[in-house]
């Protein structure tokens, strides 16, 4: 297992809905827990993954995610079981869309 942490500043979109979880911790899948949190305007992402050694790819996927949504004061926690980058992006978008009520 490997734990990765990212923190993105300069987000503008704040979420107000209660925490949501999407996805399942199954093979090739992941769960994304998304919550509003007082983080001085930042969006933090903590990833616990069964696939060790993919830090640079995670970082690229998280950077893209942040550019898509520009979240602020949001905590995202991920339990991953070897999901591909496309599945990760899909689940993260699903999590945000669920929070925004248009999933």
């Amino acid at each position, binding site marked *: *297992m490997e734990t990765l942490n990212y923190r993105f500043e300069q987000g503008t979109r704040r979420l107000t809905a209660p*925490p949501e*979880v999407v996805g*399942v*911790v*199954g093979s090739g*899948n992941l*769960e994304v*827990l998304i*919550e509003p949190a007082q983080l001085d305007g930042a969006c933090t992402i903590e990833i*616990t993954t*069964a696939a060790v050694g993919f830090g640079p790819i995670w970082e690229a996927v998280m950077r893209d995610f942040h550019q898509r949504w520009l979240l602020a004061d949001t905590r995202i*926690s991920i*339990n*991953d*079981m070897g999901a591909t980058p496309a599945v990760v992006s899909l689940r993260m978008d699903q999590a945000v869309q669920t929070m925004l009520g248009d999933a």
Partner: protein
Amino acid sequence: MKRHVSYQEASARERLQQLFDPRSFEEFLPPSARVISPHLAQLNAPVAFDDGVAVGRAQLGGVTVYAAAQEGGFMGGAVGEVHGAKLVGLLRRAVADKVAAVVLLVESGGVRLHEANAGLIAVSEVMRALLDARAAGVPVIVLVGGSNGAFGGMGIVTRCANVVVMSEEGRLAMSGPEVIETANGVEEFDSRDRALVWRSTGGKHRYLMGDCQRIVADDMQAFRNAAQEAVAAYAGQPAELTLEALEAEQQMLDDRLTRFGTLPDPIDIWTAMQMPDAANIPMLDVDSFIAAAASHRQGA
């Protein structure tokens, strides 16, 4: 007409949203509480924020019930220490709050072997809490329709309930197919023979044997209706497991062994039960099957 929604294909959380009244499910210990397994992290294994089960309060046709749904996608729905404790807590709270019923959406391979004794104890505590709930007058309804079925300790928990509702796709047994093959050889049970697996453990055989009380199509609305009817049927009725019921159950199992103990395949059993066109039973849709089974099924 409402769109057909597969119960089997849905995740645990989708089932809770779609089976109960819209937006009525209020979760106890939600994922944001992060009550996770203390054992899996030590084994360097992935954890889930809900430990594979969601528990809470919901409305079913306007009636408040307590509900739990196991997520088969996370370790086959296996019961670890936290997972089991959430089920136990739900059942105990159901007694304290005197709710109309507890509805368990079971999908589990049984004990989570990673957690060894803690998992075994957790499952036995679930059984005890379930029987305590029944003794206190809270009926327990179990729905079995997920891909992982209800096996091992959760198979026993299922059979402790007042009412078991299954789909043909749902499976209910003690040892799973691979376990039987490993322990007794492929001649005894070929776990790769999917048709044999479903004939032996699937909803139709369980319904004919009297191990489940209702069989429904793999449809969310059908499961919802069956659960709602089961809750309504127990309103104001005793839910306790009595000595007489246990003795009747024992008698049913004795009779089963005597009548069918030497028959190698469920089709032979259905033939011995004089089910018409026994070999064709797996092909019947649920309504034709229920009609064909009506005067033959055990425990009816």
